[in-house]
């Protein structure tokens, strides 16, 4: 850790990482052990690469929540390459990537989907991203798919999928890349989930416990089951009019809470100040595999008349 850091501060940081990842301090020792083995210069390197993305996931990371981006960059990882932050451009940027990739182990954070049919739809240094990315992946120690586009294709792969956009895992399969990979979905990613997961991997050299390729701690439970408005749902109080109903269940307005596994209701956003349902707006399922779905994101309360709970749930999953 930083040279000014004493043991107490050091353990504080380890607790912080543990809370970030697991919501409790139980893994503090494991993380502390990981960090003590690494001097600053040995901290794992991180490279960010973007394909069909909007940069929203990186911007979200810089906003932070419980996690802080500057702290992440200066105290937890060695950030070496990031297209929006790196000082170098053009040839100097390309040689930077190559030097870092050849200098030792690094983790690769991928943002965006990859166009597999219309390969010209994402070009990087005179080469389709489809032809470039696997070369870099093969040098990485592990890969982090950051955001719904990277995890499942997201919006670029939706509807008629003009460019034949595919997710990172599918891309790895097609190009024969065999590396450990972890998914952090979200449109955009919630900052704690990305920085917490990377911090854990960096400190312990292990992947955290996963469910469907995602860290279980963040994506284990349904939003619906943790919802602050569960009581309104239980009693059948549904929102009809956004102007008048301010605390009622949003299920009949299209809320995807019952089909989305995420800790949004407790983790919250932007310094924990708010979260979608608290703002009286339905969850649109931005971390779901099928986001942005084929069915409308918003529904009217009237369209739910006389259908059963299981039919309702099916309706949301399309």
């Amino acid at each position: 850790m930083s040279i000014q850091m004493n043991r107490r501060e050091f353990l504080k940081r380890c607790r912080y990482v543990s809370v970030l990842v697991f919501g409790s301090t139980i893994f503090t020792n494991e993380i502390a052990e990981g960090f003590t083995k690494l001097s600053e210069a040995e901290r794992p390197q991180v490279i960010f690469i973007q394909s069909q993305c909007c940069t929203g996931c990186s911007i979200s990371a810089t906003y932070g929540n419980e996690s802080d981006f500057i702290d992440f960059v200066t105290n937890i990882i060695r950030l070496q390459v990031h297209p929006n932050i790196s000082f170098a451009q053009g040839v100097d940027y390309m040689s930077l990537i190559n030097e870092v990739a050849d200098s030792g182990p690094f983790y690769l954070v991928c943002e965006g989907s990859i166009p597999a049919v219309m390969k010209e739809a994402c070009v990087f240094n005179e080469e389709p991203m489809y032809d470039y990315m696997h070369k870099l992946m093969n040098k990485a120690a592990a890969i982090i798919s950051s955001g719904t586009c990277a995890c499942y294709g997201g919006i670029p792969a939706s509807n008629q999928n003009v460019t034949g956009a595919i997710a990172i895992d599918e891309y790895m399969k097609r190009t024969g890349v065999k590396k450990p990979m972890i998914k952090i979905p979200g449109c955009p990613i919630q900052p704690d989930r990305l920085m917490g997961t990377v911090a854990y991997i960096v400190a312990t050299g292990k992947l955290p416990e996963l469910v469907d390729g995602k860290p279980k701690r963040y994506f284990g439970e349904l939003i619906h089951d943790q919802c602050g408005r569960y009581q309104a749902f239980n009693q059948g109080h549904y929102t009809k009019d956004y102007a008048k109903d301010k605390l009622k269940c949003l299920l009949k307005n299209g809320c995807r809470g019952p089909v989305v596994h995420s800790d949004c209701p407790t983790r919250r956003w932007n310094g924990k100040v708010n979260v979608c349902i608290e703002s009286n707006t339905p969850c649109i399922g931005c971390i779901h595999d099928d986001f942005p779905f084929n069915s409308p994101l918003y529904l009217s309360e009237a369209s739910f008349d006389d259908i059963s709970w299981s039919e309702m749930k099916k309706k949301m999953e399309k």
Partner: protein
Amino acid sequence: MAKTISIEPLTRIEGHMKVETHVEGERVADAKISGQMYRGFEKFLEGRHPVDAARIAQRVCGVCHEVHGVASILALEELYKNPSPKNGQILRDLILGLHLVTDHFLHFYTLCVPDFVDFTKILEYNGNDTNINTLKSWVIKTKPQFVLKRNAGNYISDTNTCLTMINNYFQALKVRSKGASGIALLGAKAPFTHAVLPGGVTTDISPDRLMQYFNVLEEVKNFAMNHYIPDVMELASRYPEYFDIGVSYNSFYANETFKVLGEPVFKGGVILNGSEQSFSFGNVKEFYDNSFYDSKGEPAPKKSGAYSWTKSPRYSGEPVEVGPLARMIVNKDEYFYKTMKKLGGKVQSSTMGRHVARAVESRNIIEHLYLLLDAYKFGEPNIKQVDFDKKVSGVGTGFSIAARGALIHQIEADKGKIVRYNMIVPSTWNFGPMADGKIGVAEKALIDTPVKFSSNNSIEVGRVIRSYDPCTACSIH
């Protein structure tokens, strides 16, 4: 001797961009700018429920993350003939304004300052500031390559100025994070607020919530007035030559914005080859001459001669520049003209003029946000929701702004489904390739840029391009 310098990828912008310059006698003689990434947003929306556009079109870009949501909603409100009550408009403008200002911080510090300031000066620091010392030890111990590997160029070398700007470089990240929490207070989360729907804002606004927003605004204002604006002025005084580098056509276009309180903060209009006129959407046409689209606008990635995914919008056939500078010039903003006079810069399209305009308009927007807070009326509705079951048909157009310039979204629906969606985005105006025989706005700005410091790279070209704050994902969508 003539040579070609190709900068690919151009970093510290949003998205994938290549800039190819032809250099003769240490000056750029010709330039081609290529947008390199296409997704097809307008296609994804076809066949969907119109209101879905509010959430999907919003996600075209994660840097200017609130502006497309707002433009889309204005289009939807026209389509549904369902304008938002005044409170809803106020909340929307509070979100939009705070976003624009903090986006300017991002642009100046994270994206542009590394082109001017020597960050290695931190190694010469011998004082007691713990923040700077922590950063110094971080640089020494971990040798962060994203900072240390940089382009050859003429950086500010005066240690004190460098340390001030380096400190603010990191401070800006913290203030932006605060700004995002202000946006989230009203809009649920940032990036991508979900509480903004056609007809208004769903959030239940308590006095306490607005108070928290006010506190955020105070912090943002303090940073803007005490750090951001002085830093821009400092930069302008150290690189006065950039008031004459990066000069484009000097035709400008701006949209009327922030008008809920009556008099708009930014008036709309067009200045075409020196003559002022009011804006008419009928005069806007998108060209595909050198873009990867066929005559119907369908993607054609193998089209011969084409070199960019960005289309080329033209106003009455002319390339026009958009952005804060266009807004200041169209508005004849008094404070901007005064500031430029003090700095000794000519009021025209220029690299430094664009930076100064951004700083000045931040001040204007912040002032307006305080007025908006006062105008919010508790107890009155924030939203008049649209009828989601209505099989709506027709056309709606939203005119709004992004930090980078004027923004238009247009939606056409038939029996409750989107049949056509069109976005005309600021970076499309500025970064569209040559069309109709005229090179694009930023391409034109590159002509005559000096190239002195490297044989295969150019910090000067980077400075000119970044002064437009390009957003490639938006511009192509």
